[in-house]
């Protein structure tokens, strides 16, 4: 056919030109070098931190992604090149006079360009495929290479080729076309990539396209639709360019079909784009409608399901389920509401053999029993249903922006799936409501929806041929049917069906298993030596876990179950159990994807290489830490496995760190989705309350002991999460904050703070640990039972003698916070005839009109972390109550000197909330005061003759005007910080350009230990303290110093070096010795004179440092600190004048 021949002829010679261009040659060479390097680093180097070899489709995904990006940019330059060339070369016209059509010519030209890129892609990806085959063997995902080529590269190239050609023809300027298209690429890449659910992401750089080995792409139709949109628009542009092409067409009317086709294609592409957005909006609207429905029915009568038997038959993708339940109404009524996934169609409902009428609206089933059923009676109910679950019902409480934000690995985005139900693979967790549950699902108006109750479940499953079923309970297989029966009542059931295989071992009558998909045994080979050691390892690990979590494991079996990598869960306000953790099992992503510690093969190789390099091997080395340089293979394997399993003991998962404007940064932490605690706590105890659904979480957090002491996060972000939470709790009620989505990352902090305050008085009365133990004992007595929060509080009120129900009334109102001022701690060594003791003293004053509590503790060098003194007799941490404007002198005595005084102000405006004060030098004394908290006069904290002006004093402290900043600087230093909060974090290596308020333990302040920090400069920025004098006289002037981190670290090195520790030969240098100008420059302005004085920070300690003595005759003296110094930052904190 002449048409094809002409196109191929034109394309052949166009390709020749491209291949002969230096531009393309250089690009190709660079591409090969770059991808070679990437392959080596990510794939061949067996880096234990890399996930690239866990999922075979990752390599083609990453390579396609990078190739696509590079090509998208290069194509802009090359796609319209031939138009320019045709214009410039006078010899081109001899081809224009040939009988080929404009379409043939242009198609040929564009195909000529595109096919060269395709060729390059084939070569690069082919090379990757070969390397992948040698590395992965049979596991190589051949199809993924084709998939990524088709869905990533083809649409992008066609789109950008079409767009650049049509723009070039319209604008008739290649330069203008470049500018517009490169701008467009930049905008879509950096700013608009996730706008409208990735609609503008034509390169596919942000739109997730991860392909699982188990289930393929997460949402293939959606993905194809997105890519089709660009393919169609690209084709439309190409056809449009045929109509616009300057050469006279072979026939007068020949351009009209192309105009029509172009419009049709572009409209179809826009339609696909519209569908893309609409699908998301529909889902969003659907979720809103479900929530509205739940709100309407949240108070409907409901039944507790006492026992439940599910008879399930898998028919292709469909599940056909008969569920027989014994229910107990919580309220007398004739109609009861249940929730079942809306994708499941209910065929019939029976009770006591009689068919019941029911009303089905989306997920709700309102069953009409036809008669009143009394509260507490039991009744049977059988529901027959079938279908495929609709995932849209999942995570109704999770904000949309969080749901559409995808995780990424290097450049690759991982989609999110909440459930799977295909003919080959099923993964259903309670979040899908795949079996009926009483009441409604998520309501944003009433917390009454989310009660969990213990139910006696059992199940019979007939899967599709060749598939294996896994769920909770004792598993028995008879013919093709699998039965499950959990030993205890449990709160939820999950169902996994697939080509699963498993390995199990019984240790001390508990069955431990790993369920993995066929061909996914990634652990046996690298851990081949430990088979005999597994039982003792498990025994050790179980003890380790139980000690760590302070609870025994309650079930008779435990399994790690492999699930597709896209399976996503979220942390919730009311529980720390994510869907990845289910009773008796934890779901792990396929082949341990993204869990580097589960990359056993690389972990082992890396350790062996390290051992071999260090010349070790053979002998048994230390088990912990990095002592593997001398480990045997067996120990190494045990270590690797132990390290992987210990991930389940970590409370915090991913930590995301972002550097923002002016040196400020944001740090967000995620809950660890594999945290084991729910197995020993949440799935065993259930504290419920219809008014306070967070009750269970509150008890859970309280018993765990909330800790918000990630000091480095605080330093980077400026405030700890507890501090942020408290600032908000002053403005909004606890109840209101629990429903707000924008600060959902602080929900645990709201709950933790409120729990601490709820039990503060009782802890004060009983002692922290005694109260905790009592509370835990009450909870433990209700194992696998539903325990009401209100009755729990009543019981604890009786035990502690404190009315614990009363504080709940204040949870509907914003919190009032106390404010404390602390004195300097004093430690005195007292030797008497009988004993030697260290007496500790501190004065703390509540300077607010709000009563409150502080948690007061002492840190000893020999502290074992259990909160008791070295003899184990005396708690080292206790609660101290404060009335409004009450000052207490707190005295305690110990057999050893404390290192630090820790004061946690609980619910106060103090910043930082946790203050650690150094014990300082021990004094010698003779008189013992005796332990206790003594109320003293509030003047106890003030010192006569001292005038202190702090940076918090807005009338007496002043800062220079901010320096004007260039636009580029503003753009580069994008603001990531939360403007809601006054105080910011900073890092010294990227200090702020302008005075920035920050807080730290080491700064001076009554309640807020803050200072302003700025990058050092030319002296144009300064801070001024206007100090009002107490009459004329001679004053000693002091400045409050907190040495910069860099200097602090260097000093430590030099000190430890001097002691022969780390730092070695640097020890003799004496810290910063040899470096000049590490001083702050002050100017003391008084009586019309300016006197400059330097404060050499190398010689200064933290705390008040003298600037000099001056005689003043004026009323006010200005102390001015400039930012001129060779240190990286200058900190403006407080000045003190002491009259002689």
């Amino acid at each position, binding site marked *: 056919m*002449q048409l094809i*021949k*002409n196109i191929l*002829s*034109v394309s052949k*010679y166009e390709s*020749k*030109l491209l291949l*002969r*261009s230096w531009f393309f040659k250089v690009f190709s060479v660079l591409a090969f070098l770059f991808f070679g390097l990437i392959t080596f680093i990510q794939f061949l180097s067996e880096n234990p931190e890399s996930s690239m070899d866990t999922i075979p489709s990752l390599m083609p995904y990453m390579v396609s992604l990078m190739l696509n990006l590079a090509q998208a940019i290069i194509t802009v330059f090359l796609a319209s090149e031939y138009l320019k*060339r045709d214009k*410039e*070369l*006078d*010899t*081109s*016209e*001899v*081809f*224009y*006079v*040939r*009988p*080929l*059509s404009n379409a043939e010519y242009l198609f040929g030209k564009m195909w000529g360009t595109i096919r060269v890129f395709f060729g390059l892609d084939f070569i690069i990806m082919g090379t990757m495929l070969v390397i992948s085959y040698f590395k992965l063997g049979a596991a190589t995902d051949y199809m993924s290479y084709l998939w990524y080529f088709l869905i990533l590269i083809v649409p992008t190239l066609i789109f950008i080729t079409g767009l650049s050609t049509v723009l070039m023809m319209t604008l008739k300027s290649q330069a203008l076309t470049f500018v517009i298209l490169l701008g467009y690429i930049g905008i879509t890449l950096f700013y608009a990539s996730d706008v409208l659910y990735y609609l503008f992401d034509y390169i596919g750089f942000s739109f997730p396209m991860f392909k699982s080995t188990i289930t393929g792409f997460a949402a293939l139709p959606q993905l194809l639709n997105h890519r089709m949109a660009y393919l169609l628009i690209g084709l439309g542009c190409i056809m449009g360019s045929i109509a616009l092409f300057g*050469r*006279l*067409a*072979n*026939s*007068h009317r020949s351009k009209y079909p192309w105009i029509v086709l172009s419009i049709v294609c572009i409209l179809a592409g826009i339609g696909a784009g519209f569908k893309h957005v609409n699908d998301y909006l529909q889902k969003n609207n659907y979720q809103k409608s479900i929530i509205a429905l739940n709100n309407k029915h949240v108070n409907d009568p409901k039944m507790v399901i006492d026992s439940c038997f599910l008879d399930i038959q898998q028919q292709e993708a469909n599940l056909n389920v008969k569920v027989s339940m014994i229910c107990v109404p919580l309220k007398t009524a004739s109609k009861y509401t249940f929730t079942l996934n809306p994708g499941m169609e209910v065929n019939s409902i029976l009770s006591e053999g009689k068919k019941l009428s029911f009303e089905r609206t989306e997920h709700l089933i309102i069953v009409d029993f036809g008669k009143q059923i009394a509260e507490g009676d039991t009744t049977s109910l059988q529901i027959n249903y079938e279908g495929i679950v609709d995932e849209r019902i999942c995570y109704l409480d999770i904000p949309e922006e969080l749901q559409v934000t995808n995780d990424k690995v290097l450049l690759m985005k991982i989609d999110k799936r909440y459930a799977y139900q295909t003919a080959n693979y099923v993964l259903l967790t309670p979040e899908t409501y795949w079996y009926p549950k009483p009441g409604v699902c998520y309501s944003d108006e009433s917390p009454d929806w989310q009660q969990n109750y213990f139910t006696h479940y059992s199940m019979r499953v007939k899967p599709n041929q060749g598939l294996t079923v896994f769920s909770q309970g004792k598993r028995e297989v008879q013919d093709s049917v699998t039965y499950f029966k959990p030993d205890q009542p449990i709160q939820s059931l999950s169902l996994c069906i697939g080509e699963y295989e498993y390995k199990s071992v019984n240790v001390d009558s508990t069955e431990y298993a790993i369920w993995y998909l066929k061909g996914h045994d990634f652990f046996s080979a690298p851990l081949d030596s430990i088979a005999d050691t597994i039982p003792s390892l498990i025994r050790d690990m179980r003890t380790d876990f139980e000690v760590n979590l302070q609870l025994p494991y309650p079930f008779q079996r435990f399994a790690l179950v492999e699930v597709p990598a896209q399976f996503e869960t979220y942390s919730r306000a009311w529980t720390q159990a994510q869907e990845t953790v289910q009773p008796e099992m934890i779901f792990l992503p396929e082949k341990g994807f993204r869990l580097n510690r589960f990359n056993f093969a690389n972990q082992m190789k890396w350790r062996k290489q390290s051992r071999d390099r260090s010349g070790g091997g053979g002998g048994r080395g230390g088990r912990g830490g990095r002592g593997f340089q001398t480990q045997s293979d067996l120990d190494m394997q045990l270590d690797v496995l132990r390290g992987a399993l210990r991930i389940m003991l970590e409370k915090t998962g991913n930590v995301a760190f972002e550097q923002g404007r002016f040196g400020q940064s944001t740090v967000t932490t995620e809950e660890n989705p594999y945290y084991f605690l729910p197995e020993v706590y949440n799935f065993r105890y259930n504290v419920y309350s219809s008014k306070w659904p967070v009750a269970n979480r509150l008890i859970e957090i309280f018993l765990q002991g909330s800790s918000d002491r990630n000091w480095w996060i605080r330093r980077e972000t400026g405030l700890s999460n507890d501090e942020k939470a408290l600032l908000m709790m002053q403005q909004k009620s606890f109840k209101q904050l629990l429903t707000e989505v924008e600060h959902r990352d602080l929900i645990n902090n709201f709950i933790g703070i409120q729990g601490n305050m709820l039990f503060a008085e009782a802890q004060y009365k009983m002692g922290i640990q005694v109260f905790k133990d009592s509370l835990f004992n009450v909870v433990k007595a209700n194992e696998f039972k539903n325990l009401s929060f209100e009755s729990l509080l009543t019981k604890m009120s009786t035990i502690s003698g404190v009315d614990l129900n009363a504080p709940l009334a204040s949870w509907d109102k914003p919190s009032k916070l106390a404010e404390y001022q602390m004195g300097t701690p004093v430690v005195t060594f007292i030797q008497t005839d009988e004993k030697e003791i260290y007496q500790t003293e501190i004065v703390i004053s509540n300077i607010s009109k709000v009563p409150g509590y502080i948690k007061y503790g002492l840190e000893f060098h020999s502290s074992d972390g259990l909160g008791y003194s070295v003899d184990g007799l005396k708690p080292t941490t206790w609660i101290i109550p404060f009335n409004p404007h009450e000052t207490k002198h707190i005295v305690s005595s110990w057999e050893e000197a404390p290192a630090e005084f820790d004061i946690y102000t609980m619910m106060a405006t103090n910043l930082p909330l946790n203050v650690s004060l150094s014990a300082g030098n021990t004094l010698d004394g003779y008189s013992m005061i005796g332990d206790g908290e003594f109320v003293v006069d509030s003047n106890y904290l003030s010192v006569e003759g001292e005038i202190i002006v702090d940076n918090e004093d807005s009338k007496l402290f002043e800062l220079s005007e901010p320096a004007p900043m260039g636009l580029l600087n503003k753009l580069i230093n994008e603001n990531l910080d939360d403007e809601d909060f006054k105080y910011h974090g900073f890092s010294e290596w990227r200090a702020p350009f302008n005075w920035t308020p920050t807080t730290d333990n080491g700064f001076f302040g009554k309640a807020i230990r803050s200072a302003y920090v700025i990058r050092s400069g030319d002296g144009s920025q300064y801070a001024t303290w206007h100090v009002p004098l107490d009459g004329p006289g001679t004053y000693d002037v002091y400045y409050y110093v907190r040495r910069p981190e860099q200097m602090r670290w260097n000093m430590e090195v030099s000190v430890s070096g001097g002691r022969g520790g780390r730092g070695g030969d640097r020890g003799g240098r004496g810290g910063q010795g040899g470096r000049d100008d590490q001083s702050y420059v002050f100017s003391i302005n008084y009586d019309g004179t300016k006197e400059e004085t330097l404060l050499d920070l190398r010689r200064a300690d933290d705390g008040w440092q003298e600037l000099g003595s001056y005689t003043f005759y004026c009323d006010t003296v200005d102390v001015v600190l400039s930012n001129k110094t060779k240190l990286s930052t200058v900190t403006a904190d407080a000045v003190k004048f002491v009259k002689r």
Partner: protein
Amino acid sequence: MSIIIKNLNKIYPNGNHALKDINLEIPSGMFGLLGPNGAGKSTLMRILVALMEPTSGDIEIYGYNLLKQRKEVRQILGYLPQDFRFFAKYKVNEFLDYAARLSGMNNSRQRREAINNMLEQVGLYEVRERYASKLSGGMKRRLGIAQALIHNPKVIIVDEPTTGLDPEERIRFRNLLSSVSANDTTIILSTHIVGDISSSCSNMALMNHGQVSFVGSPEEMLKRAEGKVWRLRVTNEQYQEINKKHPVISTIPAGIDWEIQVVADSMSQYGNAEPYTPTLEHAYVYFMENQLDLWMND
């Protein structure tokens, strides 16, 4: 007639009336289109090869209506544009192969043979692997004519093909065209070099200011100029005077005087003026000088 042009007009968007009501019938063989720069020759050529659309008028080429049947016309057309210097990075044989493919020569063996023959014919066989951009000016012209001829077109349109060529190349080029025109082919040779027409064209048209001033054979054109060319010996003052009134074609110093050739209706006022047998160049000057509208197509 192989090409019939009727009432052809071309007005550019800027208002320039480049072709004014052109009527021409071009028989097969070599047809010369003579005219000064800006006469509208190239516009006419570009319209004939379907690179440009006329404002009005009709063109029939071997029975095909150019305006409606461009594809058919393009199939029988070979074209060498006026400027043929800048090439994409193709080798000589690739350039020809590309042109041959686009002209529908699908059989690769036959195409290869045709290319080799053509390269032999134009004397470029030895440099067939050289990049076209590296050829000399003459070679480029030859490559240009080779691509125009590669598919044996019925109509070959060459626009100012000999401009810038040295005499030897020019003669070689003319001969090549002449040999092609022997095969019942219509060659339209547009030029402002009179010698190109006189040595190779059996028919010609003269264009000036977008109009056709003359159509016929070169002999007819010469005949029209008979008695209009004079040779005489004049003094310097006389030469200045004549030069103001009439085009002086030749000026040869003769001692203190000049021997000149002048195109004029009469030079009887100068005693020594004698009629001179006109050449085509004299005739061309005669026609240009008189802005003639002497010839009507019918």
